[in-house]
């Protein structure tokens, strides 16, 4: 019993420290780490943060047109965050 209590007491600060060290990156950080690579893929026109069909925060990748080849190269999740692909068309200055 004492051992368990001791272990808990020792683990709690470690968990808190883990958060401080950024062990679970935010969706903003994950998007930032991956956006250059995504935007350099042919046909990818945008990378942003929105919501998926169930309302969860998601990384949204915009394509100039539907493109199964490129879509197959985009992971369905990035570090746990859902990735949604949308064909939004070429973005032009208006």
């Amino acid at each position, binding site marked *: 019993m004492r051992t368990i209590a001791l272990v808990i007491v020792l683990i709690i600060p470690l968990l808190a420290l883990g958060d401080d060290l950024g062990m679970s990156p935010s969706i*903003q950080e994950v998007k930032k780490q991956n956006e250059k690579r995504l935007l350099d893929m042919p046909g990818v026109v945008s990378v942003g943060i929105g919501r998926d069909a169930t309302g969860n925060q998601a990384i949204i990748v915009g394509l100039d047109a539907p493109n199964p080849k490129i879509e197959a190269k985009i992971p369905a999740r990035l570090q746990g965050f859902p990735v949604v692909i949308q064909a939004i068309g070429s973005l*032009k*200055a208006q």
Partner: protein
Amino acid sequence: MADDFDQIQGILGTHRQQLLKRANVVATGIGYKQTADAKTETLSIVCSVKEKVPAARLSRQDMVPSAVDGAPTDVVQTGVIRALQAPTGRFRPAPGGVSVGHASITAGTLGCWVIKNGQKVILSNNHVLANSNGAEIGDAIIQPGPFDGGSFPQDHIANLTQFVPISFQGEPSACQFANAVIAVFNLGCRMFGSNTRYHVSKIKAEDNLVDAAIAAPLNDADIKDEILNIGAIQGTVAGELGMAIKKSGRTTGFTTGVIQQVDVSANVQYGAERIAVFTDQLLAGAMSQGGDSGSAVLDDNNRLTGLLFAGSDTTTIINRIENVFSALGVSL
């Protein structure tokens, strides 16, 4: 009491002229009489007035009688009735939401009036007021834009005072070190009789936050500090996911949408050849077309949240207004 539509129409025909002559009356028609909040089932002659005035302040001949030949009347305040003017027209004074442009472009939208060094100036996009980096400070700004028939000097409304340069991919580099190295290479090429010469290009341009510029009016009397079909701006607000937004623009007029994405990085085409990368953008659904660029984007409470500049058939891309204001050093 006359409650039959045809009968009231006849009575209105007889009395229309004398009703319209009364002070404040701007229109007459037939409608259901309205009490405080509710609509009644009683057909009446509706007199629209510029403003409702207490009976005590009206002369007898200006007062709308409570009934005319047995037909009840109703007085409704509508304000002055004006012809609706298309945003592509010439406006003096000019509000936000109307056509504007540098003399070398087609037409964009005058976003709104903002303050720079104590002076009210036009806010729009670089590619509207400064021809996508192609303009000189002091160049003439035309309202309406050239595509809408505006010309110099008749429609000259302002002069370009400042723009945030757009960084395009593959442009000649301004890096002095790289250019110096290449100059040595080219000297070598010349010395050895080669016809090859090297140029330094940016492989990846710097990221852009805004496509923005301002222009100072020639005449303060040309300033109308509100937005067509929206009204006066009530401060600013940071754009957030799910926020309902609206804009008033030169091509599609008043439209509404929702912010679907934030923190957006996007590759945006300028003409057929140039691409610029933008970061920290807002993205909404279809609410604009070519010519709407420069439109001010507001929330439901008329708070300014962005500057519209790009899009596709399904999508609208918007600069955050806080980035626009800090890049240009302007405020409301």
